């Protein structure tokens, strides 16, 4: 039951990302709800569960966009894996740390996504656009991360979500 609820939550986040999130665009960037979810899972449940969320959510994002299936999952995995080191060493994080992990994860996600696109033969954005978009998205996600984590904690409390063994 909890797995079904988790899967439904991932699917809802990915669909909202492809339908609602672009309407929240500021300066060319918009929030990444799947990334916020993956970071929230990493903080609350654990790094391994965060990676599973990132992988599943990334594949769904790939299915809503153009091109091959896999780059978004790869990019999200990289972002979540790195912040996993951070989350393991902190018992009770404050809002600033939580926001910073979202920002770092967004920058890594953006870099890997563009790199993967380039390796798979797709042209990449102009460097100045790329840097600006990554920066703007990092700030955007960082601002949204603390409230998103709070929402996820409440959902987790309702469903008593269990972690994969770390």
């Amino acid at each position, binding site marked *: 039951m909890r797995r079904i609820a988790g899967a439904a939550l991932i699917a809802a986040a990915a669909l909202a990302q492809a339908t609602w999130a672009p309407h929240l665009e500021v300066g060319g960037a918009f929030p990444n709800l799947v990334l916020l979810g993956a970071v929230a899972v990493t903080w609350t449940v654990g790094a391994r569960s965060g990676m599973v969320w990132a992988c599943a959510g990334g594949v769904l994002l790939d299915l809503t966009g*153009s091109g091959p299936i896999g780059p978004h999952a790869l990019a999200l995995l990289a972002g979540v894996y790195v912040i996993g080191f951070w989350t393991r060493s902190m018992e009770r994080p404050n809002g600033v740390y939580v926001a910073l992990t979202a920002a770092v994860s967004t920058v890594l996600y953006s870099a890997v996504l563009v790199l993967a696109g380039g390796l798979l033969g797709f042209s990449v954005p102009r460097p100045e656009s790329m840097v600006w978009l990554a920066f703007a998205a990092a700030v955007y996600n960082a601002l949204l991360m603390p409230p998103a984590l709070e929402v996820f904690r409440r959902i987790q409390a309702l469903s008593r979500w269990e972690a994969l063994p770390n």
Partner: protein
Amino acid sequence: MHGARSQSRSTGLFLVLCAAMLVLAMLSQQPWAAGARSAAKSALAPGEVAMTSVATQVGRMTSVFGDVSTLRAENARLRSADEALRRQVVELNAAAKENASLRQALAFQKSSGHHTVAAEVIGAGPDGFSRTMEVDRGTADGVRPGMVVVTGAGLLGRVREAGPHAAIVQTLADPQSRVSVYLSTSSLQGTLSGGPTSLQLELQHTLGVVASNGEWALTSGVGGAFPRGLVVGELASLTRRDAAATDVAQVAWVNEPSSLSFVLVITDFQPS
């Protein structure tokens, strides 16, 4: 000890998942997998339709509580009408500069001779780097990859992938997008490329001819990817580069993808 083991297990899972995703990306990119990939993407379309519908319903409900939304809708309608009228003026001006045979061809391309399929926008690209949108028409409706997509205001992009009941449109704002255009007054030609905030135009130098702000950019038909004469945007700023073979200009696109609900897919133009 426990921390090191936990870290090692996470690294192991990370490597396995990365390898799986790399293999999936490479396999799904193969030409023989295009059908399965498009079908998988089409499977998500009903979910996107439902989410878009929910967003529309919420928008309708909130609009009841104030005049602002009504005024915005009216403003959007008037803006749309204004864009259509401006497009007509630009197209008429451009057509007037053509010789008889070109005018005949242009008239054919622009007239109602084009068969179009109206499609509803049901989703957008999931990240800020690729500027795509998903529409609710696919191969079952005659939509094929490569087909040109327009709105009442002008050119929007082209179909990138098509599943049975949905298609992904690569808009002009996508970094991979390239369109050959000419300017309505100076007739200078150039290549337009996508960008997140504005479209960038590289204009070829022509002795004695200078582009000016406010000129309209229309598709030139060079390369055969788009029909000639579709309105793309207005020249917003120009940077002259005397040492280079081209000048760089920013073009204000006639379309605002985030506010689009419906688009038209031209089904009878075959890109060469």
